[in-house]
């Protein structure tokens, strides 16, 4: 089934379903109900999509959106390749675009538990990915003119990878939601483990910086004491 074969009313109903709304009363549906294909709790409309599985329509829609961010970020990074930080900010803007155009429509279709797991998995993964991206991109600023096309290519690849991964991950989650599979224990463990690792890494960083500062202060005091003793 293609969208060209649908009437405007059918497109309207499908678009509402993809937004996580009832195709008749357009009210927000509780998480997971749209993918299960049961009934709207407000108006009793059947939520079964006559045009094929809703999760497939989600995958198609997001793949059409992801290339916009890739092209825009690549072009922007090429034009501003000589300036530090700008390409990183462009990648950040690309990730924000992915958040609103790929992740948000996908998580809207999920039940509460799965939505929390999915959002935090992508958020924590995205945080680590963004930090790595920034280091790579800023290191390329050292390459002056050659860095410009390299930065553009790498920034575009980074955004494309983030979009591709988010899309695949949420497509997997929407398929599992439609199959009424529960959230696995390892998914929760992964989220909690990643969050704990991130907090731990930040704590280690702070402790290290404090220790270095104290050690420097002690060394300075020793030098001053030695000078005064002489």
């Amino acid at each position, binding site marked *: 089934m293609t969208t*060209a074969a649908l009437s405007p009313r059918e497109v309207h109903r499908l*678009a509402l379903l993809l937004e996580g709304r009832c195709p008749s009363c*357009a009210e927000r549906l509780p998480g997971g109900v749209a993918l299960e294909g049961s009934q709207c709790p407000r108006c009793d409309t059947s939520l079964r999509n006559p045009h094929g599985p809703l999760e497939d329509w989600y995958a198609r829609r997001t793949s059409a959106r992801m290339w916009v961010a890739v092209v825009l970020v690549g072009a922007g990074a090429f034009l501003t390749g000589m300036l530090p930080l700008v390409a990183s900010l462009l990648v950040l803007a690309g990730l924000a675009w992915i958040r609103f155009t790929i992740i*948000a429509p996908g998580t809207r279709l999920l039940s509460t538990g799965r939505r929390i797991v999915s959002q935090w998995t992508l958020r924590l993964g995205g945080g680590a990915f963004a930090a790595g991206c*920034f280091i790579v991109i800023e*290191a390329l600023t*050292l390459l002056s003119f050659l860095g410009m096309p390299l930065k553009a290519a790498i920034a575009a690849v980074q955004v494309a990878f983030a979009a591709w991964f988010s899309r695949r991950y949420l497509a997997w989650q929407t398929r599992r939601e439609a199959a009424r599979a529960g959230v696995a224990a390892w998914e929760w463990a992964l989220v909690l483990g990643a969050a704990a690792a991130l907090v731990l890494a930040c704590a280690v960083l702070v402790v290290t910086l404090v220790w270095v500062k104290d050690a420097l202060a002690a060394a300075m005091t020793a030098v001053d004491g030695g000078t005064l003793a002489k």
Partner: protein
Amino acid sequence: MIPFDAASRLLGLATASGTRAALSLLLLAAGARLGKVALPPGLGFLTHDAALGALLALSILEQATQRDDDVRKLLAVLSYGVHGLAGTLVGLAAQKSVGLEHAPPVALGAAGAALALLTQGARQRLHDALGALEHDVVSPRRWLVRLENGGVLGVAVAALLAPVVALAFVLSGAALTVAALVAARKLEGRARRPCPACGARIREEASRCPKCRAEVDPVTWRDLGWLHRAGALASSAATSLETPSR
């Protein structure tokens, strides 16, 4: 026997495409010496032992100079001279083959020489540009200087701050989500209208009232955005939709 204009056309082609000019000239002169190429009377001197020896020496020298940038720059004048000579020969040969019988040979030779010198200049610039590129990217020392100039410090600071960047990303993402939820709640109350049947506040996109179940016409219509507009994309995805995804 190969006519001179054909041989010099080959010489011009070889020189322009980057083959060593002295080598091309040597081959031309050797061909004339062996009776395989007919040189014009004015260029007969190229078949003498001394000229052949000089061209052989020039070929070896030209080959050697290309391996060392400093020597190449030092002997650039000589290289330009050889290319100019080759260009002159090609220009003279063009008199018959291109139909310029009435043009003075001096002008043709000068034009050939100028063209050859311009080509040689462009090739030298390309050599310099590629040399600079190699110097800029491949040179380990250059990278060491870059790292000493702050690269190590920058990468170390960035690596050290990576957890903070990741945490900031996560926290700002969470804050953004909360803000988006609050905004969505506020907007949810807006795009509404009274149901024509019972007066309940229903969505503008609704085709059925959730309270009295009356069928109504939507005021606002939704579409599938790019997915709907991009017919080619939709038709290509149709096959994937028709096959079971699980």
